[in-house]
């Protein structure tokens, strides 16, 4: 009576062992990407989570082979993409450790990440030292590639100088009269750089215009009553701001009822991402940029329509700048990796091959053409766009009108010229249509 039972137990053990062997034997090679962005803290809502959402929906489409050509090959060159998501919160020291963990412990092939300029400046030399592939998809400081030389580190989005040059060019093109302008920017690298870029750009295009009130509230201030009083006490023709996220939302909610937007033409260098949330609370006529031709200002194309629809369907909100920048990074990576794989007989490429493939390349993204044109082909340039807000009663959303797009060469410095030098030279070498 015991014999059949023992035999069935042995059968089970053999089957289990075979099953395990089979599963091990069939473990498919993947293309592993570490994605780092803010999942908590103040930058999560505006930048981190929308970007990660964008990565999730795009990677799913890539793996299913559902993205439009030339992104329609499943995964990356047929290898399924395996993504790991890491929180960028916690400061630069933590990020350096997390980056090492991703490469050395998790064995990721590529890291795509970083919103904070401080984080980018900290992790880039580490990836370079480890000879590991790193794409910086978002952070804005020009210093990363202007003050350093990298082989394995890339930035697939334009740096922040473009934003304020485009704003100033837009004002000039639309003949907005400016004799004085006020400024309110956060008191850290991003705000200080934006402020400087805008002042230098205005000096080129509006030499007679003078900066007046110059506010530098701390990051995450939340309460802007006093700053608004200061701005209103000397109202200027124009009020410039590079505030973003919760700070920008709070500023608009507090400055709107006090009449700042009526007394002065407000221009926001990176304001597009607050439009879906603020809705009707966003004052009409505000001039704003998106740090690229993103969202409502993206050039019409089948690729953009697909991206807009895919993201909107997944998250019930249209994509703003952060998911666009993530998409252009992953699209550039996919094409570069597939090109390198083709040269490597279909096998996963080495870091060196991958870097050679992305360096100096160009590709179409939902926001138009991305060109790795600066800093020996490691730094991208792209077109910029600026528009003016207008609430649409029919669509029940804020729309952008009077949109003007600027060619990448018109708003980015030329090769081997530092941003600040370019601004001080009066945009020497800029090619504008």
């Amino acid at each position: 009576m015991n014999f059949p039972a023992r035999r069935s137990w042995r059968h089970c053990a053999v089957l289990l062992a075979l099953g395990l062997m089979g599963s091990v034997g069939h473990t498919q090679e993947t293309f592993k990407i570490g994605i780092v962005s803010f999942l908590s803290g103040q930058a999560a809502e505006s930048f981190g989570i929308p970007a990660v959402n964008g990565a999730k929906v795009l990677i799913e489409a890539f793996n299913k082979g559902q993205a439009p050509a030339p992104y329609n090959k499943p995964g990356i060159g047929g290898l399924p993409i395996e993504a790991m998501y890491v929180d960028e919160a916690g400061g630069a020291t933590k990020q350096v450790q997390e980056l090492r963990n991703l490469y050395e412990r998790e064995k990721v092939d590529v890291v795509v990440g970083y919103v904070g300029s401080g984080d980018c400046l900290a992790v880039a030399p580490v990836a370079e030292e480890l000879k590991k592939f790193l794409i910086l998809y978002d952070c804005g400081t020009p210093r990363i590639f202007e003050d350093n030389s990298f082989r394995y580190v890339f930035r697939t989005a334009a740096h922040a100088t473009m934003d304020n040059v485009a704003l100033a060019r837009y004002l000039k093109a639309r003949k907005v009269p400016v004799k004085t302008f006020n400024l309110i920017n956060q008191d850290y690298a991003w705000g200080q750089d934006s402020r400087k870029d805008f002042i230098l750009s205005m000096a080129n295009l509006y030499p007679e215009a003078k900066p007046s009130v110059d506010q530098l509230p701390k990051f995450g201030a939340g309460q802007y009553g006093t700053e608004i009083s200061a701005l209103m006490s000397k109202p200027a023709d124009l009020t410039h701001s590079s505030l973003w996220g919760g700070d920008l939302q709070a500023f608009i909610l507090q400055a709107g009822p006090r009449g700042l937007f009526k007394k002065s033409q407000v221009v926001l260098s990176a304001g597009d991402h607050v439009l879906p949330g603020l809705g009707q609370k966003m004052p009409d006529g505000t001039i704003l940029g998106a740090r690229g031709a993103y969202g409502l200002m993206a050039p019409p194309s089948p690729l953009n329509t697909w991206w807009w629809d895919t993201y909107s369907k997944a998250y019930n909100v249209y994509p703003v700048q952060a998911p666009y920048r993530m998409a252009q990074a992953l699209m550039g990576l996919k094409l570069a990796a597939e090109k390198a794989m083709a040269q490597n007989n279909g096998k996963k490429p080495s870091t060196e091959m991958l870097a050679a493939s992305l360096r100096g390349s160009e590709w179409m993204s939902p926001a138009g053409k991305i060109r790795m044109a600066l800093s020996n082909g490691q730094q991208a340039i792209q077109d910029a766009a600026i528009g003016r807000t207008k609430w649409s009663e029919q669509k029940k959303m804020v729309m952008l009108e009077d949109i003007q797009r600027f060619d990448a060469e018109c708003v980015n410095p030329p090769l081997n010229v530092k941003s600040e030098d370019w601004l001080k030279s009066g945009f020497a070498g800029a090619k504008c249509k």
Partner: protein
Amino acid sequence: MQLALTILVDGLSYASWLFIVALGLTLVFGVLKILNIAHGSFYALGAYMAASAVALATDWNLPPYFSLLAMLLAAVMLAALVAPLTERGLLRFFYGRDEVLLVLVTYALFLMLEDITKLIWGANPYYVSEPYGLFGNIDIGSQSYVGYDLLLVVLAGLVGGLVWWGLNRTRFGKIVTAVIHSPEIAASMGIKVSRVYMVAFAIGLFLAALGGAFTAPMISVQPGVSVGVIIISFAVVIIGGLGSIEGAAIGALIVGMARAMAVHLMPVAELFSVYVVMALVLMFRPEGLFQRIQARKI
């Protein structure tokens, strides 16, 4: 003259908001001897609860002014729910231990509450700006202020007055004072010290939540709102003297006025102005403006 008036109004408005939050912080320290870092999280929770409550009131088509009551009720509910859980369920196990350990415990609580908030409300921002427009605009000199901002001045005065009256003119206030001076002697006189601790903690939490609730209409409520407020609140209570209500009021006024003057006269020194005042006070009065020097118990 106009500039002085603007600085005065701006400083007072900022100080009012700060006082409501800092009052809770100083009260909890005064009674429980806890430097409560999680106070910032209670502020954020108050803002989120208020956002949900106002949204609910709007959905039910209640009159616009009811949103103010909804915000108040949100803060009360939060204090009633979370204070017993936190104080009885966590903090009481650490009473009598090193103050540094309590700071670490409340910091851990702060981190947990950050994630809990995100789990409940998600990462998307909440807007409840409807109450912000309830009182229209008021012109003071050449400036147009939102009436709601000035409501906070009234609210701060009311809250400060009520807490002062409660501590100085009621039987419960005398009991609290006795516990502050010596929990051991108070207990030997038949006072339920644990109950005093819980009530004091609940009032402190309510004040943080109230600050958050009445700030919600002016901001977008989203992850991260808890961080800034706790740092500046600590500056206020350090200037005024930890555990002192008068100190919190004067500290908030000093910080509000210093900040308003800096923003109007030297914007680059905005942050510096607050902490230079704090440093000056600590140089001459290390225990804060309203804290008496106390002999250490051995």
